[in-house]
């Protein structure tokens, strides 16, 4: 690797880490879409092209501008919690942990904020705070089990996902009257608990679900980015992720860092749930028997976004975009095609490391070639110079 005076990595276009992440994500997306297209072809070859178009266009497939904006609003409302969930996953991943428990922390947050909305008609910011605390506590369980008892966070996360689902459903049925029917109507009727629009709905054809949750989400993403790249805590977290023992040796308290990381992850998932359910967009179904997919889709978004807090904003939007597009497929194809595509994308994300390695090999080879050319040139020049010297000497000799 050659460095110039400023310490910049002089490796050409493929050498830039951002470019490599972006290219790898693009390859994953294209391959995922290709497989999705093949599946559509197998199921029903006539409509495959149209089906793909509907899925990729999502809101653009609507026929007038007002509806388009409204549907864009719906996609954006669902993107916000997805961004937060993927932040939760990437934050844990930086410490070398796999926060598959984000789904459970999300459930805990949802239960807590809805409970306060129902029971005390609390204002929205209190509800969000409660959701943060609930999610953080749920994350802390995983963190403490990992730090002190060596329990693998993946397994404990999965168990906690199910436990939180059963607990929340049970408590909601028991204490929140009418919650088993519909929580949207309740949240909407409960104006203090509803997150305010502050005029943002006007941008999306009066889609009242678009609230200040969306700009807040973006702010949180930037804050996480700053926390990870500019603070001591962020540095310690990444150091622990690279090498736990080295971090410990350097005097970092790796146990409390692990717990603190999981607390932050849980808080992020909790905020995600409160933003989603207090926007009055979706109902919490107290009879659901499987853990909400939001936490798992966050894994897809996190890895597709190159594990970068800003990258996940775009990847989350993309995943939500095709999954909303997928729901308009009903009638022609099963809506789960979109899930299929995003699952394939996650699978392909496993190959990202390999792809980046290949890219750096390509750029290294290019660099070597360039270097070799330069060396050859230099050598040729030297030879020329030597030859000139020699001939001059000869001339000099003759002159003598």
């Amino acid at each position, binding site marked *: 690797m050659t460095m110039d005076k400023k310490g910049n990595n002089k490796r050409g276009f493929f050498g830039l880490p951002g470019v490599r992440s972006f290219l790898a994500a693009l390859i994953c997306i294209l391959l995922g879409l290709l497989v999705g297209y093949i*599946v559509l072809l197998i*199921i*029903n070859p006539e409509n495959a092209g149209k089906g793909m178009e509907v899925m990729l266009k999502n809101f653009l497939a609507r026929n007038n501008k007002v509806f388009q904006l409204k549907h864009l609003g719906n996609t954006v409302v669902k993107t916000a919690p997805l961004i937060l969930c993927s932040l939760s996953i990437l934050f844990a991943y930086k410490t070398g942990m*796999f926060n*598959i428990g984000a789904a459970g922390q999300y459930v805990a947050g949802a239960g807590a904020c809805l409970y306060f909305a129902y029971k005390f008609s609390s204002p929205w910011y209190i509800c969000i705070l409660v959701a943060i605390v609930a999610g953080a506590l749920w994350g802390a369980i995983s963190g403490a*089990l990992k730090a002190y*008892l*060596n*329990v*693998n966070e*993946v*397994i*404990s996360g*999965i*168990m*906690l996902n*199910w*436990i939180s689902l*059963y*607990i929340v*459903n*049970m408590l909601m049925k028991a204490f929140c009257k009418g919650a088993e029917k519909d929580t949207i109507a309740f949240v909407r009727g409960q104006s203090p608990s509803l997150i305010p629009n502050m005029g943002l709905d006007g941008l999306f054809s009066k889609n009242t679900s678009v609230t200040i949750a969306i700009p807040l989400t973006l702010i949180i993403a930037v804050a996480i980015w700053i926390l990870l790249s500019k603070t001591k805590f962020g540095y310690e977290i990444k150091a622990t992720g690279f090498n736990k023992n080295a971090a410990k040796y350097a005097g970092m308290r790796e146990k409390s860092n692990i717990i603190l990381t999981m607390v932050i992850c849980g808080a992020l998932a909790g905020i995600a749930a409160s933003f989603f359910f207090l926007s009055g967009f979706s109902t919490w179904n107290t009879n659901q*028997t*499987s853990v909400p997919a939001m936490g*798992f889709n966050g*894994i*897809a978004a996190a*890895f597709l976004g190159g594990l970068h807090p800003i990258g996940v904003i775009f990847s989350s939007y993309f995943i939500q975009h095709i999954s909303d597009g997928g729901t308009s497929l*009903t009638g022609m*194809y*099963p809506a*789960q*095609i979109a*899930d*299929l595509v*995003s*699952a*394939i994308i*996650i*699978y392909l*994300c*496993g*190959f990202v*490391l*390999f792809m980046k390695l290949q890219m750096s090999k390509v750029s290294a080879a290019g660099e070597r070639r360039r270097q070799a050319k330069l060396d050859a040139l230099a050598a040729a020049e030297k030879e020329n110079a030597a030859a000139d010297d020699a001939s001059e000497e000869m001339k000099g000799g003759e002159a003598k």
Partner: protein
Amino acid sequence: MMLLIQYTLVYASLLTVVALGGCYSERSGIINIGLEGIMVMGGLGGILVLAFIPATLPPILIFLAATLAAMICGMVYSLLLGVASINFKADQTLVGTALNMLGLALATVIVKALNIARTAGADNSARIIFKDTRPLLSLSQGTEFNMFMILTVILLVAAYIVLYKTRFGLRLMSCGEHPQAAASVGINVAKMRYFGVLISGALGGIGGLMYIYSCGSEANFETGVAGFGFLALAVMIFGQWKPHRIAISALLFGLFRALANVNQAIELLERLDIPKPIYNMLPYVICLIVLAFTSKSSKAPKAEGIPYDKSTR
């Protein structure tokens, strides 16, 4: 009480089979979080055979055909994990998670597409009904005892013998403990790991079929296998990656899972009047507590989850 024993055995047998699958894979050094997805895909293969095979064939033939289909589907699907984690050194947890999501989505899409095509759009559910062939696999009518339980015992004994008494098993386990040392005496680590993953795919597939069979005479693929793949992983950890201990811990977990089904039938439990969600939660809570006490002295294969790299020591 009889009912409780029956259900305990149903769940324990399926957990044993899947946990043994996980055991083969992890012993070879590959973490298999994707067991849940493998179960769904294997179960799909097996159930399709059960739903469309003529019920006039001899029961043993139907049983073998369904089991074989489940095994093959599971193995083919597990190749996705093998290729990614052995050839491309991918993050095994990530790939496993992807397999879980993919399995559920793929199975739902396949079943829905089949139903739509079969009924010309009238039925777009993700259900498969196998009413006709279900009673044929039962060992004594009216009870939950079925042929899969015999298969479980065979697989359990086989796992013990293969892992501890054969050259293949010992080599497999050496790849999970110290692959570099294994390679230095001429063992092909990649090949052994492929064997581990494929065997876990086959067993996971059979387990998936067993789960779907245990749910009644129709299968809804939108709910998948309800976290049994993960429970099986917990059984495996509690069983400390050893076949005989896996069987015992599967019985324990099976008992708690069975309580959720039959708590109304037992007088003592009915009088306690505990809400049903508590019973549903119980296996997971117990699992967590058990893991908290056993993970400190975990006997996990040392090299699991680490891609094999020739150049390291």
